[in-house]
C-alpha cells in the first residue's frame, strides 16, 4: 500500500497540470514584471535597464500613495461599517421565522450575483448630480439635491458606499452561517440566567464568532487591496487621482501614459503588499488550534 501512495509517476501526473498552469499564468508573469520593472520600456520599441529608478520614483509618486491610502480606507470602511452592519443584521435575522429568513437572505445577497459592469454603470446613474436617483431622493426630503457625489472630496466616499453595498450580502451570509452554527443550548442557558438580547449578543454571539470575524476581516483587507473593476468603470480613478487604486493605476501608467516599465514596477510592489498584508493579519490573529 505504501508503494501505491508513493508512486512517483502517479504523483507527477496528479500534480503536473495544476503546477504547469499556475507557473505559466501566475509565477512566470510575476517574474516578467520584476524584469520589466527595472526598465524604462514604454511599450513600444527598445528599452534600457535603469536599475531601481522606477521604484525610487514610486516612493515620490503622490498618486501611488493615494492608491494605497484608498485601499486602506476601503479596508477600514469594510471593517468599520460593512461588517458591524452585517453582523447585526445577521443576528437579527437569526431571530426571525424560517420564511422571513429565507426572503431577507435572498434579497441581501442579490446584488452579489450581478456583474460589476452593471453595478458600476447603475451607480453612475444613481450618483448623477443632474438627474440621478440619489439627488432626487434628497429633494424628496427637502434638500437642494445638487450634490456632485462623484466630485472632488466626496468621490472616494461614494465609491466606498458602492463597494460596501455590493459586498454587504456576502458578509451578512457568512456571519449568518456562523451564528447558525452556535449551539442553541448556550442561548437557552443565557435566557435562564436572565440575560437580555443585548447581553446575549455581546457575551455569547460575538465571542463565539471570533474565528469567523477574523477570516472575514482578512478577506476584506485583501479584496480592498485588489479593487479594480468597479473603480475603473465608476470614476476611472478621478477626479484627478482621488479615487485611484493600485491595479487601476498600474493599468493607466502602462497603457495610457506609455510607461509599461513603471506599470510593471507597480505590479511587483502590488504583489508584495498583498502578501505582506496577509502575513501581517495572520500574525494579528494567531491560530488557536
Amino acid at each position, binding site marked *: 500500500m505504501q508503494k501505491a501512495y508513493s508512486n512517483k509517476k502517479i504523483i507527477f501526473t496528479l500534480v503536473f497540470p495544476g503546477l504547469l498552469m499556475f507557473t505559466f499564468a501566475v509565477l512566470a508573469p510575476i517574474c516578467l514584471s520584476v524584469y520589466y520593472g527595472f526598465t524604462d520600456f514604454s511599450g513600444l520599441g527598445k528599452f534600457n535597464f535603469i536599475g531601481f529608478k522606477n521604484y525610487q520614483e514610486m516612493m515620490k509618486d503622490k498618486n501611488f500613495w493615494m492608491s494605497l491610502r484608498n485601499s486602506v480606507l476601503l479596508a477600514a470602511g469594510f471593517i468599520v461599517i460593512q461588517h458591524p452592519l452585517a453582523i447585526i*443584521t445577521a443576528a437579527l435575522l437569526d431571530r426571525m421565522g424560517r420564511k422571513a429568513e429565507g426572503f*431577507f437572505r435572498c434579497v441581501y445577497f442579490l446584488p452579489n*450575483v450581478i*456583474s460589476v459592469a*452593471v453595478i458600476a454603470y447603475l451607480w453612475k446613474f444613481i450618483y448623477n448630480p443632474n438627474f440621478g436617483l440619489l439627488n432626487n431622493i434628497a429633494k424628496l426630503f427637502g434638500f437642494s439635491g445638487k450634490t456632485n457625489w462623484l466630485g472632488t472630496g466626496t468621490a472616494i466616499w461614494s465609491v466606498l458606499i458602492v463597494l460596501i453595498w455590493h459586498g454587504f450580502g456576502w458578509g451578512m451570509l*457568512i456571519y449568518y452561517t*456562523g451564528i447558525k452554527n452556535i449551539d442553541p443550548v448556550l442561548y437557552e442557558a443565557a435566557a435562564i440566567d436572565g440575560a437580555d438580547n443585548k447581553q446575549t449578543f455581546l457575551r455569547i454571539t460575538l465571542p463565539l464568532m471570533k474565528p469567523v470575524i477574523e477570516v472575514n476581516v482578512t478577506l476584506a483587507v485583501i479584496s480592498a487591496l485588489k479593487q479594480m473593476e468597479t473603480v475603473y468603470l465608476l470614476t476611472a480613478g478621478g477626479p484627478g487621482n482621488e479615487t485611484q487604486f493600485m491595479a487601476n493605476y498600474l493599468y493607466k501608467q502602462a497603457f495610457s501614459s506609455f510607461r509599461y516599465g513603471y506599470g510593471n514596477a507597480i505590479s511587483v510592489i502590488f504583489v508584495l503588499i498583498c502578501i505582506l498584508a496577509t502575513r501581517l493579519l495572520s500574525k494579528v490573529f494567531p491560530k488557536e488550534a
Partner: protein
Amino acid sequence: MKGKKKKLTPARIVMWFVLLVFAVIQIFPLIWLLDFSFASNTEMFTRGLLIWPENIRWDNYVTAFVNGHFLLYLKNSLLINILAVILVLMISVMMAFACTRMHWKLSGTVRGLILLGMMIPIHATLLPNYIIYDKLHLTDTIWALLIPYVAFSLPQGLFLTGSFMESIPKEIEEAAVIDGCGIYRVIVVIMIPMLKTSLVTVSIMTFLNNWNEFMMASTYLSSPKWKTLPFSVLEFTGIYASNYSVQFAVMALTAAPMVILYLILNRHITEGVAMGAVKG
C-alpha cells in the same frame, strides 16, 4: 426555542423595520434600473423616483438583445465559465489528493506555493501576461481567458478540497487500495462522491468570481468571437451614448441570467458560499 410562537412585540417591530430598511437599500437600485429600462429616454429626466412609463418600451429590450450580441456573449460567458469550473475542479481534486494523501518530499512546498496564489491579485499579471499571450499568439482566443481564470481560482479550490479531504478518514480508500484499486479509480469512485459539498462550493465561488471579470477580457480579446457578457454593457455605453433607456435595458438584460439562476439555485448558492467562507 424553535417551536415557540413569535409574538409581535415592540422589539420585533423594530427588528422588522431594520431588516426591511436594509432590504430596501439593497434592492431599490435594482428596481429603479428595471423601471426605467421600460421608459423612453426623455422620461429619464423626471424628478420622481419611479415612474409609470407612458408606453412600455419593449423595443428597448429588442435593441439591447439584438445589438448587444446578447446571445453570443451569453454563450461565451457560459462556455468559458463552465469550462473554467470543470478544469478547476479536476485539477484541485488531483492536487489535493496528491498533497494530502500521497507521500512525497515536496508535497508541503507545492501546496504552500499554490496557496500563496490566494494573496496574489489577478490584475498584477495583466501587463506581463499580455506580452506572454501575444508572443504565443493566444490573444483573442479562449485560452487568454481560460488560463488566468483557472490559474487564479486554483488556490482557493485546492485550499477548500484539501482541507475537506483531510477531514475524511483514510480507512475507506486504504481498504480499496489494499484490494488493488488504482489511485485514479480511488479518486474518481471514492473521493469525488465524498467531496460533493466542497465541490459545489468550489464551483460556485469560481463561477461567481470569474463571471464578473472583464479587465482581462477587454485587454486580451479583440473580436466579438469570445467576448463575455459584460461587453454587452461596455459596448452599449459607447454606441447608445444618447439613449439612456436602451442602456438601462441592456444592463437589466445582462444581469438577468445570473439573477434567474440565483433565484432557482438560491439555497445551494447561499449554502455553498457560506460553507466556503466559514471554512476558509
